[in-house]
């Protein structure tokens, strides 16, 4: 890993308990800068002003912009972000839609295994570092990433 500033990880889940658990996990086991939100609205505001390295989002956010649509917005705004879904729903149709439309890095089911989740995030951030490098030396075109 390069000696850069800390990675920023965004977590979005309308269940406060899950948010607390994830926050505590990342806080105690990693040095990532964690932005935690219980509503898509707040999260949308955050992605206007913060560079997000990796986002972990629940699929369903009742009464709110749902997880997939949030990730689509994130993809448009920050095409090099790593996008993940962590959800209790396991609906195959939406999994396929998610993976295809959103360009999902991983789709994980609840309950998750702490060690596996941390490893997946690490992998995601490695990919993120690589993507950024390639973009900097202009091998990757930003508009390609937005599609």
């Amino acid at each position, binding site marked *: 890993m390069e000696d850069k500033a800390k990675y920023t990880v965004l977590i979005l889940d309308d*269940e406060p*308990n*899950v948010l*607390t*658990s*994830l926050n*505590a*996990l990342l806080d*105690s*086991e990693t040095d990532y800068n964690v932005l935690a939100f219980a509503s898509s609205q707040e999260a949308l505001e955050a992605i206007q002003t913060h560079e997000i390295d990796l986002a972990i989002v629940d699929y369903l956010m009742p009464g709110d912009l749902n997880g997939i649509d949030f990730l689509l917005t994130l993809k448009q705004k920050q095409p090099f972000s790593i996008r993940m879904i962590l959800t*209790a*729903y*396991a*609906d*195959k*149709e939406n999994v396929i839609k998610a993976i295809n439309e959103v360009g999902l890095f991983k789709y994980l*089911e*609840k*309950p*998750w*295994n*702490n*060690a596996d989740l941390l490893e997946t995030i690490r992998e995601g951030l490695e990919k993120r570092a690589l993507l950024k490098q390639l973009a900097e030396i202009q091998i990757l075109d930003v508009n390609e990433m937005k599609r």
Partner: protein
Amino acid sequence: MTKLKSRTAEQMTNHVEKTPLEELAHLVEKHKDEASQEIPVPQQLIERILTAAHETDEHLQRAQKQLMQSEKMATLGQMMAGIAHEINTPVASINSNIGLFTRSFEKIRMLMDSKKMLKEDRQNRQMMRIITTLEKLNHVNTTACSRIVQISRSLRDFTRVDEMELRETDLHEALESALVLAHHEIKRRIEVIREYGDIPKCPCCPNQLSGVFLNLIINASHAIEGKGKIFIKTFKDEDAIKIQVTDTGKGIPPEHLEKIFGVFTTKPPGKGTGLGLLICQQIIEKYNGKIEVESEVGVGSTFTITLPTQPKSGQN
């Protein structure tokens, strides 16, 4: 042991040349030009018509019950999927937190160990004792929580509506899944002995087969009063795969053996609907397989499922 082969629908209908209704129609046709409004119908024919009508009635009743049961199961399936989901969310938090507790206790221990001289301090010894107790309890929590996760996963897999498709299935996994769900009926009382053979994967819908296995295992557990054993044996037999569930239960008397694949139950009201084996048979027959039973009163029963290694159909 009385051996009874399961029957196909065709074999169950024994045909005479003309059905009673056809004969009646024939009579009507014969006498239609006569002036009198009455037709002589032989007593025997009337009796046959009544029997046929009665049988039709029974068939209809059975079909209606089946439909109701299927509808009930569909609703139950939906409910269970919803419940599994509801459980998964809080369990996710608990499961994650338990992992963090374990890590935190490790860190505390390390911190305390690093200050060796403080070990002499009475308060620190007390603290270490408390930490040790907490670690033990957390270990129990870890085991208990992973049990919940296991059950929730089995439930979720079992009720996944979007996976009624054919898949190369490891039948042993399907059996294990069924055993997880049957655990409550079995634990403590019944010993499960597995004799898993070397069998190929089978193209089928794993949920359906798991359901059939679950039914057989639960029946076996109900047949055993008090303590007993259930043997689950799988093996390859030429072009087919055989799965046998044997119990040391009370057995099925020969006069009942005929009926168990119909609408029939010896269980008290409220326990079982008598339709389980019928539905199991239909599922297995869809895969061009069969279910057979052997039983001896006082000794036990063996249900044998035979599945061709290349079932042709299976789609619901």
